[in-house]
């Protein structure tokens, strides 16, 4: 069973490559922070952004909606978004909504 924690976003950047690692819960309260972090990365010139969800313990529909929005945005604005699957039961929501086959999941690219 997942243990809830406030969302922690670990950021790293190497030129046009950026990485955000999410620990804790991505929900209606914390999703805006992830959106800000992504906007900041892209604004700073990142062209290929990896969001590592492995340590994420929980995600609700607001979090899922955000990934759909980010995916559309990446396509429209010409940058690449890659997601790494959560290791926890947080993966369930991607599976039950079949978002897993629609969102740009990759095997660990690091």
């Amino acid at each position, binding site marked *: *069973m*997942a*243990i*809830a*924690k406030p969302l922690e976003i670990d950021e790293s950047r190497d030129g046009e490559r950026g990485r955000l690692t999410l620990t804790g819960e991505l929900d*209606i309260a914390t999703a805006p922070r992830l959106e800000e972090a992504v906007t900041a990365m892209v604004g700073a010139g990142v062209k290929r952004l990896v969001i590592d969800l492995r340590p994420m313990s*929980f995600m*609700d*529909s*607001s979090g*899922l*909606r955000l990934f*759909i*929005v980010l995916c*559309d945005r990446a396509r429209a604005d010409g940058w690449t978004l890659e997601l790494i699957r959560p290791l926890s*039961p947080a993966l*369930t929501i991607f*599976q*039950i*909504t*079949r*978002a897993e*086959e*629609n969102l740009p999941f990759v095997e660990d690219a690091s």
Partner: protein
Amino acid sequence: MDGDRLDGLEQALRGSERTLEAVVNALPEAVTIRGTDDHLIFANRAALERLDMKTVEELRAADPRALMGEYVPADEQGRELTMDDLPSVRLLRGEEPQPLTLRSLNPRTGEESWARLNATAVRAPDGHIEAAVTIIEDVTVPKRLQLRSEFLARVSEVLASSLDYQETLRNVAGLAVPQIADWCAVDLFDEDGNREPVAVAHVDPAKLVLAERLRVYQPEQLDPDSGVGLVRRTGEPVLYNDIADELLAAAAVDEEHLALLREIQMRAALIVPLIVRNRTIGTLTLVSAESGRSFNSGDLEFAAQIAARASIAVENARLYSERSEIARTLQNSLLPEALPQLPGWEIAALYRPAGITSDVGGDFYDFWEVGEDWLMMIGDVTGKGVRAATVTSLVRHTAQTASEFDPRPAQVLGRINAALRRRPSLSVCTALCLRIHGNSATVASGGHPLLWRLDGSGAEEIGRPGTLLGAFDTVNWPEDSFAIAPGETLLAITDGVTDTVGPNDRRFGTQRLQELLADVRKESPTAIRERLVAALEDFQVGAQVDDTAMVVMRMLPAAAAQAAAARVSRPVARV
């Protein structure tokens, strides 16, 4: 006591050192000198003015204790002060006093003022103290500003604490006493202009009885030319100082009324309007009584600031209740008016919107009949508020219309997905669609938690995940058909159930749900619903964060089904 030296000192100030006296007299600060016998022996012009005296001789003749008592001095905590607390007196006793900030009232005018007293010793050549010079700085203006900003901060806190405006207004009135006034009352006006007393506060609860008794004498219809009625008519504040006994006598309707008015000892009153969008909706009344202080234009301005904040509280509460009303209306339009009579089935449903917010939730469920089949849909629109309600409405209507053409669940979900994809902004929804035809059923999920089947052996999820609606270009909604036997139960939920937060931030989760459902599998739909709600409430820590909806339906045993069918008063057989 050294009389000669004192005289000498006096001489120095009053006689030979005229220049010095002129300088001291010209100071804006009041300066006094207290002798070792505690009498004041000198006061400059500003000090004489403060004490309402004409000459130093008059001052010297006065009993210092009595003189001070008339000014009802109090410290910053409102504690009454005596002469022994004054820095000059303490200095003369050999102590080393800190400067003292005190509040006093002019006994003649009732005017309140704040002063900061700082005493310095006048020492004889041998070092012993022979007099104390006090410099009295008038700090009324900064002190009032400080008190008022502190008070307004507390008012703002109180206003933010509750959406029950009556409670809020009572709390504001409670804050005003005794710092601002002895009494504080708030009245609101109803549609017909009658006053509705909302709050009366006094620091002494025993005094509140007087207000209760006085209320009997308040006419329902206000006099438009005085007091609260005047403020209501003009929207302008009124200020009454020096309320004389004749005024009370004129206002009193009988002896008992007059006695009550006298008992309250009303000295001054200040009434300011509560205004919302240019309309006077009520008044805030401050009354000065036993404290004897009067009100000035500064108090009036301050009262107006409190009233402005209180008005916002009332308006917010009104807007909020209006918003709740809209939300309730919308919500009601999103759920079936009553659960349908499904022949051969017993149904229970639940919709529990998240607490705190009055926004419309995104969960919904629906039942409808298509030919000989029944369709059930449960769903969850991401987001809240009117926008989510619009999407919910679109989803429900699309589903019903689509099912007329093709009642297969995957087809219905496909039509909803297409309708959502046509919307200009991302509109995402999960939905589970169940079609019941006789003893068999077909289910498909559009990103929604799967259907549960409860039978003799336990509880299991039925069906396979399908694509979230409105989100993606690549879609797949696998359909699963299954047979249902009498006595079996189907249960559909929204994710508010499994996402319920419990101790140590754990989620209720699927496993806990499965165990509970296995446990209650033989009970009636209503009993299952109640057990699940009880389990969630028991588990839940903190406020409910998400909407929760569920539908529980049980196929009745054959005999019961026949009896139920007989009760349904419409043709069942079709040729």
